[in-house]
């Protein structure tokens, strides 16, 4: 599945739920399914600034692919992070750096987060892209 197809699938899943309470429930579920991050990465070095809740992101290359692991002390944030790592982890740096993340607007994610979380969302995406760019540059 391409990143584009995977996003279509997310959108479909979200559209099943009429209201945001159910969507939050879905995000909570996703959060529950996501593996916990290795505690050793939960340090300031991996912390993303600008969120009310704390949010950590780690990236490493395994072969040709970037592997993202992430975590948050807030469950809904963790659910969103699960969406993002599910979407982008295990892709090539090139795929990640070029990805157009249209699902965010389509499901109205930003509007339904608090401003600091919307900021956090943008910050984590930016950070993912930065990692991808760095690895991509290294590959060239």
């Amino acid at each position, binding site marked *: 599945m391409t990143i584009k197809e995977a996003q279509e699938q997310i959108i479909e899943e979200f559209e099943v739920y009429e*209201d945001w309470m159910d969507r939050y429930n879905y995000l909570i579920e996703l959060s529950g399914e996501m593996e916990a991050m290795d505690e050793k990465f939960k340090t300031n070095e991996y912390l993303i600034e600008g969120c009310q809740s704390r949010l950590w992101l780690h990236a490493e290359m395994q072969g040709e692919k970037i592997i993202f692991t992430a975590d948050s002390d*807030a469950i809904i944030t963790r659910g969103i992070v699960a969406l993002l790592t599910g979407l982008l982890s295990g892709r090539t740096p090139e795929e990640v750096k070029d990805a157009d993340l249209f699902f965010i607007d389509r499901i109205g994610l930003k509007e339904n987060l608090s401003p600091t979380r919307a900021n956090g969302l943008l910050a984590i995406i930016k950070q993912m892209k930065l990692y991808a760019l760095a690895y991509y540059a290294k590959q060239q």
Partner: protein
Amino acid sequence: MLDVKKIRNDFPALHQEVHGRDLVYFDNAATSMKPAEVIDTLREVYSKRNSNVHRGIHYLSMRMTEEYEAARRRVMRFINASSEREIIFTGGTTASINTIAYSFGEEFIKSGDEIIVSAMEHHSNLVPWQLIARRKGAKLRVIPMNDRGELLIQSLDELISDKTRIIAVNHVSNALGTINPVKEIITKAHDRDIPVLVDGAQAIPHGNVDVQELDCDFYAFSGHKVYGPNGIGVLYGKEEWLEKLPPWQGGGDMVKRVSYEETSYADLPLKFEAGTANYPGAIALATALDYISSLGIANIAAYEKELLDYANHRLGEIGGLKIYGEAENKISIISFQLEGIHESDAGMVLDKMGIALRTGTHCAEPVMTAFGIKGILRASMVFYNNMEEIDRLADALKKLKQMFG
């Protein structure tokens, strides 16, 4: 005593849906809704009587000046100041406190001096003092609190010294709801001839404040938290103090004579009111104060006590809910956390259920630090809230626990 159903009709903003649910507005400590009278006053002033105050000798200007000065007297009576010269209109509590921090600080604080604040100050009554302390090389001393969120004012006996220049303390804590024993603090301070500034932002809306009885030297509050408009606030100061202090801001209205060489300052209260006054705001604030006076401050306090008791009872049923701030003496604010649920998750989901409350540090980060937490949920209730809304909150919190369970 209060006819809450009727009162709710005075507040147009209460009657709206949020995410398809009737709004429950529990964010009153951040800002209050406004009665129609206040909103109408603004409209009337701007659309019928508007004209700049002071110095004008035409009819509209003279009438507006009278109305503005009458608003000052209405504020004076509300807090029982002894003279209208003691009532300065500012932009809000923050501006009021900065006025004194700068003016008093420049005149009376020097290197090695000390300023006493409490462990539960809002940033607005902390950062201005940090700034002046840094400029002057002075030091902040902090009145500690116990784990119920009550100040340990016996400790004042040790904190106060010959170096103490001023004490700045909140009357009611916005984060914990604690009503602080400011009168005792003032008495102790005055025993040593130390003036006291009281941050009354959260006190004014909830109980009778009599500055003469308190004997405070300065008292600060905001319009927008007491059912009045934004951009207006009050600084009360004892005349003898205000006379002694240098002006803070320079500009029109605060001067008597101006030349490039020499400038002399206007008499009180104008000495501290530089620039065009927010007279519509001042008049609408007076309307707000009259409105709550007409309901009866004692009635308001009594009803809000009922709200608090009921909310304590209903929220007490919820397992894993921990309340922060359990002072003997508190206003109708409940700050809490739900075990295992991040306050921002909770706030976001409550919002979708139509319940507006505040999450985070509430501009009182040191209070959070003291309790070893990063943030809390705060439900702040006032006289237009009712028991059903508290039920809605309790039910929502139960649902929340299931969701995140």
